[in-house]
């Protein structure tokens, strides 16, 4: 199933500068994405998990070229996507599509379902008007919408159905890579399960590769082959689905896993050692140091790089491996 690298991200950075206010000369720099190295293999689902503000959505926006990086590159099939313009850029955008979280604000309230699903074909001038309509209707049935619903407007659909429109619109151009940015986060559990199953189906039918972004470890575990854990703009752990849940390497990964409340009331977790909040001001050393229970002197001085731990795993922690029994 997996063969070859589809996307190669190297040293990717995106900084935002915030002015300190009208009367202040001081400027703050936010490292939304901070020197990220990451590969996405053809045919896999790469899960990206992290809390709000960790840069996962910025990464998605960089991948889709909605933002320009302040450093580094993204190679898609060997070509740097930031060198694209004109026709080449258009063709890249046919190949990489995004599904958004908020199904209400990402759909045009004044357009019918069918016309929104058709729109990408119109923009890319694919097929005749008749062919476009046929293709859009076919996509609608693929995502589980009925023909009778074609002329309806977003407000006439439920949240789950609106997300189906979003998915149909992303898939109508036959992309290779789908960036799904929290696609099920705003849905109820029973609807969330329907959409996750649909995404699995479509992946097989259309031979897709997914980059699946979520804050929900349950969802990430269900759908991903490999998982990247992000914290304050950096990838702190990257490994297989099985590894991350059976043998987390980074203290932050452990903390995330501990924080998910178990659905078994008998399995009360021992009082957790979760403390603090992410520190936004950049300082010397590891960005997780203020919340870490295993901090040593080196952690306050040097930022740990993402290092290879074994064949499948990478971890950015000075103490990776040596604290495994304690995690």
């Amino acid at each position, binding site marked *: 199933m997996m063969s070859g690298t589809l996307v190669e991200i190297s040293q990717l950075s995106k900084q935002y500068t915030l002015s300190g206010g009208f009367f202040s000369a001081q400027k703050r720099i936010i490292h939304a994405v901070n020197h990220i190295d990451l590969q996405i293999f053809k045919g896999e689902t790469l899960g990206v998990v992290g809390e709000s503000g960790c840069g996962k959505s910025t990464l998605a926006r960089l991948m889709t070229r909605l933002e320009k990086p302040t450093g580094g590159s993204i190679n898609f099939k060997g070509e740097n996507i930031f060198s694209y313009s004109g026709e080449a850029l258009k063709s890249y955008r046919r190949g990489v599509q995004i599904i958004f979280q908020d199904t209400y604000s990402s759909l045009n309230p004044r357009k019918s379902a069918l016309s929104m699903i058709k729109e990408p074909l119109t923009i890319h001038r694919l097929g005749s008007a008749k062919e476009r309509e046929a293709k859009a209707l076919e996509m609608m049935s693929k995502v589980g919408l009925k023909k009778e619903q074609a002329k309806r407007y977003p407000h006439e659909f439920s949240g789950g159905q609106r997300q189906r429109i979003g998915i149909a619109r992303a898939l109508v151009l036959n992309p290779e890579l789908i960036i799904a940015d929290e696609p099920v986060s705003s849905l109820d559990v029973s609807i969330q*399960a329907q959409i996750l*199953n649909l995404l699995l189906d479509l992946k097989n039918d259309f031979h897709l590769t997914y980059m699946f972004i979520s804050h929900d*470890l*349950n969802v990430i575990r269900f759908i991903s082959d490999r998982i990247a854990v992000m914290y304050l703009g950096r990838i702190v752990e990257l490994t297989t689905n099985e590894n991350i849940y059976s043998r987390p390497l980074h203290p932050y990964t452990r903390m995330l896993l501990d*924080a998910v409340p178990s659905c078994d009331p008998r399995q009360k977790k021992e009082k957790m050692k979760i403390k603090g*909040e992410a520190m936004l001001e950049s300082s010397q050393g590891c960005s997780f140091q203020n919340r870490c229970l295993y901090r040593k002197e080196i952690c306050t001085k040097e930022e740990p790089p993402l290092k290879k731990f074994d064949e499948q795993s990478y971890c950015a922690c000075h103490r990776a491996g040596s604290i495994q029994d304690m995690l």
Partner: protein
Amino acid sequence: MQTPLLEIKDLVTVFNTARGRIKAVDGVSLQVHSGETLGIVGESGCGKTMLALSIMRLVPGDGRIANGEIIFSGQNLLTLSEEDMRARRGSEISMIFQEPMTSLNPVLRIGEQIAEAIRLHRNLPAKKALELSVDLLREVGIPDPQKRVRDYPHNLSGGMRQRVMIAMAMSCHPKLLLADEPTTALDVTIQAQILDLISSLKQKNNMAVIFITHDLGVIAQNAQKVAVMYAGKIVESAPVEALFAKPLHPYTEGLLESIPAVCAASGRKGEYLKTIPGTVPGLYDLTAGCRFQDRCPYAFADCQSKEPALAEIETGHFVSCWKYDGKNSLRE
């Protein structure tokens, strides 16, 4: 058995809308004791928030409470004058909401907002009230409370704002706390800290908590009793262990099965999730019979004609479903 702190009997909250009259809360009965957490779980639109607002007598707009009793500390809240109700709101019964940003006043310092409740309900001078709000901020785990009382809501992170909301709710030592999705907008690591805080405050003050959420994991870890709501009705209620070990209502069963992996200890990666087909019915187009019939894998003829009542199938375990006819026997 001790008398419950809060007992709701057959509560009905209706809304008159352009499309007709709907029952957002439809015949709900429940009990909560001091020191106990009742979890109310359900999907969006099932009426769980309207239930909480009904208890506070804060039903918005065209809504009104049409029937039932809400007995709190031996008094029916629905017969109180607005003035008497206001004296209880925020002092004996407090509520925290999902979105702390919109529930806090953006142009007032957080210290003043906490102090307001203390001044009104406990008749303390402004200076004393402000001092107390510093103590409260310390109690809910806000670092450097002396300085923080002078902050505005926008200076704080989401987790800190929720702590301020909790400090405000706790300011008059309420007997009952209504928590409506208090951690839904927060990250998991922050959620864990807020849940810990609520449960330790509950123990310290022997407070009753009604915890409203759509997250079954949060319920499993924090509640002693659970009520599952569907389309305005409670369809199942039980002690938390019983509900998760043996869900009786087909809807509860479906909800539990649609949660992905981590919960079910076995990684089920790559397999399909079980789902509940269809969507929650709109309250406008409810038909005769059981509200869950269209989505129910077990539905049979009876379900279309008669609405099942909540019946005690096992001790303390109530369910409204025609599957259980009489004594815990499953009809074919």
